């Protein structure tokens, strides 16, 4: 991994309704490229992202570009330069596409042209209520909300979940393009997408980091994939 990480997580623990969902997670995210967070269902991938943002109760140290952010409220953490694309999109269904994007704008000169070029389908649907969009279009809105600002890091949670194969390709393409300008911490179950996009990978199991390393090296190791991700092979299209 890079010598100058953008995000460093040390001894992160998190609870939801008294239940410990992140046991003791430590890892770092390099300042370029895409780092995948892998693991079976329920091992704490989503909770780890939510804990970094302070959306759930947590302890431990989180450092963004050298500054501790674990004592800050969620909105302050985001203002420091983290864009978040949650699992299940979480667009504001009664607000229009334009309103969803306007709400996300934090800087004086938001990157509207960049987002419009990346998601041309959204341009003609600006006045449409986000709740009436297809799953793929909602995912684009969710991604666009994160990309409209100049962030230091994007945290993207299962962006291809439940999408048709063609849309999965479009979303992966958008992430690849975005990663040229901002590092991304990506939770993803689709191993084909991980293989295509991620340089590094962090594998979680039981709320702990059990493996880190080169993403393709991990996916090429059938025994490791079977043991840690519960998948028979790392063939194209396999999902963890």
């Amino acid at each position, binding site marked *: 991994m890079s010598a100058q990480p953008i995000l460093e997580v040390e001894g992160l623990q998190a609870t939801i309704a008294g239940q410990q969902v992140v046991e003791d997670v430590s890892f770092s995210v390099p300042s370029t490229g895409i780092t995948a967070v892998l693991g079976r269902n329920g091992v704490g991938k989503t909770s780890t992202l939510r804990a970094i943002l302070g959306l759930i109760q947590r302890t431990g140290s989180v450092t963004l570009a050298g500054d501790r952010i674990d004592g800050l*409220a*969620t*909105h302050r953490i*985001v203002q420091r330069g983290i864009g*978040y694309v949650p699992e299940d999109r979480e667009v*504001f269904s009664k*607000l229009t596409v334009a309103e969803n994007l306007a*709400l996300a704008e*934090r800087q004086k000169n938001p990157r509207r042209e960049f987002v419009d070029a990346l998601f041309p389908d959204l341009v003609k649907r600006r006045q449409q209520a986000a709740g009436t969009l297809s799953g793929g279009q909602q995912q684009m809105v969710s991604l666009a909300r994160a990309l409209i600002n100049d962030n230091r890091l994007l945290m993207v949670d299962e962006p291809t979940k439940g999408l048709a194969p063609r849309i999965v390709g479009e979303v992966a393409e958008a992430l690849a393009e975005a990663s040229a300008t901002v590092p991304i911490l990506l939770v993803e179950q689709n191993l084909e997408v991980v293989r295509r996009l991620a340089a590094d990978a962090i594998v979680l199991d039981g709320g702990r980091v059990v493996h880190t390393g080169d993403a393709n090296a991990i996916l090429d190791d059938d025994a490791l994939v079977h043991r840690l991700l519960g998948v028979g092979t790392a063939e194209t299209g396999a999902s963890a």
Partner: protein
Amino acid sequence: MSTLILILITGVGLGALYFLVASGLSLIYGLMHVLNFAHGAFLTFGAFLGFEIARRIGSDTWWAFAASVVIGGVVGALFATLTELALIRPLYERHIEQVLVTVGLALAAVALFEGIWGSDPIYISAPAWMNETTSVFGAQVPNTYWVLMAAATALLISLVVFLRFTRFGMIIRAGVENRKMVTALGIDVRKAFTLVFAIGGSAAGVGGVLASHYTGYVSAHLGSTLLIFAFIVTVIGGLGSLTGAAIASVLVAVLQQFANYYLGGTGDLIVVVALAAVLLVRPAGLLGRTA
């Protein structure tokens, strides 16, 4: 015919008053999931200070009336803002404690008002026109009802414009849907909480002044009585739905007036029966989420 018209307009006028109180309750619940039992206290305090200012200026002039309405709105907003900052915010995400603290504040406020203004109703005076009636197809409609309807209509239009066309309005609409996601976009949703309390408190304060003209007096229990019906219309309309609250306010008040006249003064009972029926048949209310 004239009786029907009078009952109908009386119902709409009372519904307007309910909406002035219920709009704040609905906004506060929609965004913060707090059932604010102190809302009646905002109303009563607005009514008392409105009465005090009108008394000093000259109760039966339009200037005094206008000043009392403005003071009622400002006082309601300030009281509500302080409540949110001092009592609600420290209990963020602890909804049961937040409800309990508003109940406590409501009880303490009534005791305080009784200590200052006594427990007997204080009868107020108004501009001469408000004590007169206007003939509508033979029905003599008290002019106070027109003022109530105008105030509620102005409030509804203002709120719709505010929610639809301002950034804070957008934040509130988004927060009603998914508050955590609003914070995850880097927005301090607590500012919206304070603003919603201030808006709700202001509407209640204005409602307090107008309620005192509707009843003809101001008392320490003015808010408590109205709050019960405001809660009922908020639930019937659908918790968190402003439009639902507006529709339910008119429906409930009209139903109440008709029952009072034709069913031997059973208006309050009929309203409670209507609430039970709505909760059984349509638990989410007319336009809202599950109660």
